[in-house]
C-alpha cells in the first residue's frame, strides 16, 4: 500500500470511506514525512502536531458516526498569510511575531466546515512579496527537485509541502503568480481562482485588488475539490462575487473535443528558456491530440503588465502594510520615546528588504505629484489589459501559456536584482490584473530535471473551463505523478 502522505485528497477520501485508513494515520504519515524531509526543505514554519492529531481523531469519530463531509479528515497545509483562529500568522515577517489570530479566514472556516485538518503553516516570501520564498524572515525553503534551487514564491512553502508529500494539499495565495509559479517550479498543481471567487476575508492583504486564495494540490481533481469547498459569496468580503458556484468536479472530462485554446502571439516570441518552450509546445500538441483546436490570440499589452502590476501592487501594499506599526499586535521595537520613533524603528526592524522596497515604491507612486503619472496611468493600462483578455476570450475558451520564462533557479541567483526578479512574472501578473483565473499543471522537465509548468488561463468565473483542460491534459500525461527524491518511488497509482 502507498504511504498515506503521498495520496491525493480524493484518493485518501476514497480509502477513508472504504475504511482502509483513518485520518489519524494519514496525519501521522504526514508528520513522519515532515520529520524526515523538512529539516532540509523547510516548507513549514509551524507544525500543529498535537492539534492536527486531535482534529484527525475527531474526524475519524465523525466518519464512524456516518459523517461524510467533502474534506473530512484531509490534512491540509496553510500558507502563513491566512488567519486561523488561535494560531500565529506571521506572514513570514518578524513584524507579526507574537500575533495570535483571533478569528478564522472565511476560506479556512469553510474548509473547517468541510472537515479539513490543519497540519501546519507554510513558509512564504514575507507578506507574499517575492518569487522565491527567499524573502522570509524565518529562512529559505528549498526546492525538493534540487535543494540548492528556489521553490518559487511567494507560496513556496505550500508548493514544497505538496510536492514533497509533506501535505495532502495546501493553500496558497496569488497576487501576481504566487500560486502558479511555485507550483510550476515544484511540479504540483496550482489554481488561482478568478478575483472574487474565493473570499479574501482573513487573508492578510498584500494587494487587495489582486489577491486571491487558491489550492495547491497533487492533481487537478484535488484543486477542484478544494475550490468547491472554499468558493462562493461571503458577506464579509465586499469584493466577493455573488455568483453561483458550479459543480467543478462535473467539469472534469478526459477529452478536449469542441474546446478552443488560444495561444498568445506575444508569449512565444523568444525570451523563453528553450526547455520550457519545448515542454510547452509538446503540451500544446497533447491538447490538440485530445481534440482541442488552437487559435492565435493577441495580448498586446503583455510587456507593460509588469510595470502596471508593480505600480498597483506596491501602491496598495504601502497602505495595507501601514497597520504594522507595533501598536496593537506583533513586534514592537524597544526603547522608543514617542510614537513616531516607535513606528519608524518597529518598521525598520520588523520588515525585510523586499517589503521595504515595495512600501517605498508604493508610497512614491501615490504621493503628491506622481499619482497621475504612475498610479492613475497604471489603472488605465490595467483596464486595457483586461480588455485585451476580453477580446481574446471571444476567440477561445482558454489560453495556454507558460507560467514562468525559466525553471527554478539557484538560491541567491537573482536576489540582488529585484527588477530582474520582477521580469520573471510576465506570464502570471496579467491574469491578476484582469481578475481572471489561471491554473498551473506540471508539463514535463528540463534537461536538469527541474519541473516545468503549463498555464491554462480562463475568463472571469471560467474555472470550469481551465479545470477541464488541466484535467484532460494531466489525464493524458504522467508528469503530475512524478515525485522528487526517495519519496517518489513509493508513489504510484
Amino acid at each position: 500500500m502507498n504511504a498515506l502522505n503521498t495520496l491525493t485528497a480524493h484518493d485518501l477520501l476514497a480509502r477513508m470511506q472504504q475504511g482502509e485508513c483513518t485520518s489519524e494515520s494519514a496525519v501521522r504519515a504526514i508528520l513522519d514525512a515532515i520529520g524526515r524531509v523538512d529539516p532540509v526543505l523547510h516548507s513549514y514554519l509551524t507544525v500543529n502536531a498535537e492539534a492536527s492529531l486531535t482534529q484527525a481523531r475527531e474526524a475519524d469519530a465523525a466518519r464512524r458516526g456516518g459523517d461524510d463531509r467533502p474534506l473530512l479528515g484531509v490534512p491540509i497545509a496553510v500558507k502563513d498569510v491566512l488567519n486561523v483562529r488561535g494560531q500565529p500568522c506571521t506572514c513570514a515577517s518578524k513584524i507579526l511575531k507574537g500575533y495570535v489570530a483571533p478569528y478564522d479566514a472565511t476560506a479556512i472556516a469553510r474548509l473547517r466546515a468541510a472537515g479539513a485538518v490543519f497540519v501546519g503553516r507554510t513558509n512564504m516570501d514575507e507578506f507574499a512579496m517575492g518569487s522565491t520564498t527567499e524573502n522570509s524572515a524565518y529562512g529559505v525553503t528549498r526546492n525538493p527537485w534540487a535543494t540548492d534551487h528556489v521553490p518559487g514564491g511567494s507560496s513556496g512553502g505550500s508548493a514544497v509541502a505538496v510536492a514533497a508529500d509533506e501535505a495532502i494539499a495546501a493553500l496558497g495565495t496569488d497576487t501576481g503568480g504566487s500560486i502558479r509559479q511555485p507550483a510550476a517550479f515544484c511540479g504540483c498543481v496550482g489554481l488561482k481562482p478568478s478575483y472574487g471567487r474565493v473570499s479574501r476575508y482573513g487573508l492578510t492583504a498584500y494587494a487587495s485588488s489582486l489577491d486571491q486564495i487558491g489550492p495547491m494540490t497533487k492533481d487537478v481533481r484535488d484543486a477542484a475539490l478544494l475550490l468547491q469547498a472554499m468558493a462562493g459569496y461571503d458577506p464579509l468580503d465586499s469584493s466577493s462575487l455573488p455568483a453561483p458556484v458550479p459543480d467543478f468536479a462535473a467539469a472534469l472530462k478526459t477529452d478536449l473535443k469542441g474546446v478552443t485554446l488560444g495561444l498568445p502571439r506575444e508569449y512565444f516570441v523568444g525570451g523563453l528558456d528553450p526547455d520550457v518552450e519545448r515542454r510547452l509546445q509538446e503540451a500544446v500538441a497533447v491538447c490538440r491530440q485530445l481534440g482541442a483546436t488552437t487559435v492565435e490570440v493577441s495580448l498586446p499589452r503583455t510587456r507593460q503588465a509588469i510595470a502596471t502590476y508593480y505600480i498597483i501592487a506596491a501602491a496598495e501594499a504601502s497602505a495595507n502594510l501601514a497597520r504594522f506599526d507595533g501598536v496593537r499586535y506583533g513586534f514592537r521595537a524597544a526603547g522608543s520615546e514617542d510614537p513616531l520613533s516607535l513606528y519608524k524603528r518597529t518598521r525598520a526592524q520588523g520588515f525585510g528588504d523586499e517589503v521595504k522596497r515595495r512600501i517605498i515604491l508604493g508610497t512614491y507612486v501615490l504621493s503628491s505629484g506622481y499619482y497621475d503619472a504612475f498610479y492613475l496611468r497604471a489603472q488605465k493600462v490595467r483596464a486595457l489589459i483586461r480588455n485585451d483578455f476580453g477580446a481574446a476570450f471571444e476567440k477561445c475558451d482558454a489560453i495556454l501559456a507558460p507560467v514562468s520564462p525559466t525553471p527554478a533557479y539557484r538560491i541567491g541567483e537573482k536576489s540582488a536584482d529585484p527588477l530582474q526578479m520582477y521580469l520573471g512574472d510576465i506570464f502570471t501578473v496579467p491574469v491578476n490584473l484582469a481578475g481572471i483565473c489561471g491554473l498551473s499543471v506540471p508539463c514535463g522537465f528540463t534537461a536538469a530535471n527541474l519541473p516545468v509548468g503549463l498555464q491554462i488561463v480562463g475568463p472571469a468565473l471560467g474555472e470550469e473551463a481551465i479545470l477541464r483542460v488541466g484535467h484532460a491534459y494531466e489525464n493524458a500525461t504522467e508528469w503530475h505523478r512524478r515525485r522528487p527524491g526517495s519519496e517518489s518511488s513509493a508513489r504510484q497509482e
Partner: protein
Amino acid sequence: MGEYLTTIGLEVHVQLKTCSKMFCACSTDFGVDPNTQVCPVCLGYPGSMPVMNREAIRLTVISGLMLGCRINPQSKFDRKSYFYPDMPKNYQITQYDQPLCLGGGVEIEVEGVSRTVGLTRIHLEEDVAKNNHFATWSGIDFNRAGVPLMEIVSEPDMETPAEAFAYLQALRQLLVYAGVSDCNLEEGKMRCDVNVSLRPRGQVELGTKAEIKNLNTFKGVFNALEFEIHRQADVLQGGGRIVQETRRWDADTGQTYSMRSKEDAHDYRYFPEPDLMPVVLPPEVVKEWESALPERPRQRRERFVNDLGLPEYDAGVLAADKDVGDYFEDTLRYVKRPKAVSNWVMTDVLRTLSEQNLPITAFPVKPEALGELIELAETKVINSNTAKQVFGIMLAEGGGAKAIVAARGLAQVSDTGLIEKVVDQAIAENPKSVEDFRLGKDAALKHLIGQVMRLSKGKANPQMVGELLGKKIGRG
C-alpha cells in the same frame, strides 16, 4: 480689525445615529468600558475587511437632502494615509473625490439678518480611536474607532465668529430634526475644525489660513475664532506673515497653539479603497427618501404660528429644539389649547429643566400628565395657584393631575353657599380691613381675599370671593 477682512470655513464632524460601526458590526454605544466594542475590522487586524453600513449611507444622504445638497449619483470610498496611534490601519477610509453629497447650504440669522452659508460637500468616513494621556504614556481605547462620521464642509463663507456660531446652531438644529445624529457635544458626537484667514481690505485672494482642530463646543469655536482673528491681525500688523498650520485651542488659557506634531508632510496619498465597491444611488431611492424627510424647524415654526395661532415668539422658542417641540406637540394631544400649553412649556417646564439641568426627554412630568393639569386649570377645576402646586407634586412624586387633585381635595370651591360662610367669617375677623375697604383702600380688599383663601385652604374661586366681598361690604 478694520483694515482686514476675515474668512471662516468650518468642517463639522457628526457621529451618525447607527447601532453598529461604519464598516463592522461592533456597537457604537458611548461610555462603555475601554476596548470592549472592538473586532478585527475596527482594530485593523491582518486580513480583516470593511463592509459598508447601509444605514450610515442613508443617514448621510438624508442629511444632504435636509441641507439642500445634490446627491452624487455615484460615490466611492478612498484611503487617506497618515500615521497616528488612534488610527488602527494608519489610513482612514473616507471619501476623496466622489463624496455622497455636493453643494447645499444652511440658513443663518445674525442680528436679525438672514443669509445662507454655502456648503461644499458632505462625505462619510470612519472615526478614529480615543487617546488617553497620562504622565509618562498614552493609552488607546478603540471603542470609537470605526464609528460612522459625517463630515460637513462649508464654503469659506463666514466673516465673523457670530456667523460661525449661528451656522453651528442652525446646522445642529437641522441634523437633530433630520434624526441623523443627536449631535451631543459632551459626548463628542459633533466636533468642529475651523479654517480662518485674514486679508487686507481690497485684496481679492484669500490670506494664508490657520486650521484650529477639534473644537467640541460652539462657545469654544466662537472664542477660538475671536482669539485667532486677533492673533493673525497682530501678526499682519507687525509686518509678519501667517504660517499655514494646524493649531489647537486651549479653553483654559483662552489661546490657540501651534500643533507641531501635525505639521509634518501633508501628503495623504489618497487612492480608491480596493476593499469597497462604489455606491450607486438610484434616483428613485433618493426621491423616496426625500419624500419622507422630516419637517424642518422653520416649517414647524410657521405651522405653529399659522395653524395653532401661537405668537411668533412662542413658535420660535418651541420649534428651536426638536425635543421641546415634540414635547409641546405631544402635550397638545391631551389638551387642545395651544397657547395655554405653550405658556406652561415655556415657563414652568423650561425653567425646571434649566434648574435641574435635565434634557426634556428625561423630564419627569410626561406630556399626558401636563395635558391633564392644563385641562383642569383651564376649566377652572383648580385655580392657578393650585395648578402650580399640583405641578410641583407631579414633578416631585409623579402621578396624574386628576388623581392628585382628588386625593388631596384640591378642587376649587365654587359653591356660593360655602364661600359665603367663609367670607362672613373673614369679615367678622377683620373689621379694620373692612373699614379701610369701605373708605376706598383697594389694598384692603386684597388682604381680605387672602384671608378668605387661607380659611378655604386655597380652594375658593378667587373671582367669586372678590365679587362676594364687594357685595357684602357694600362697595360692589
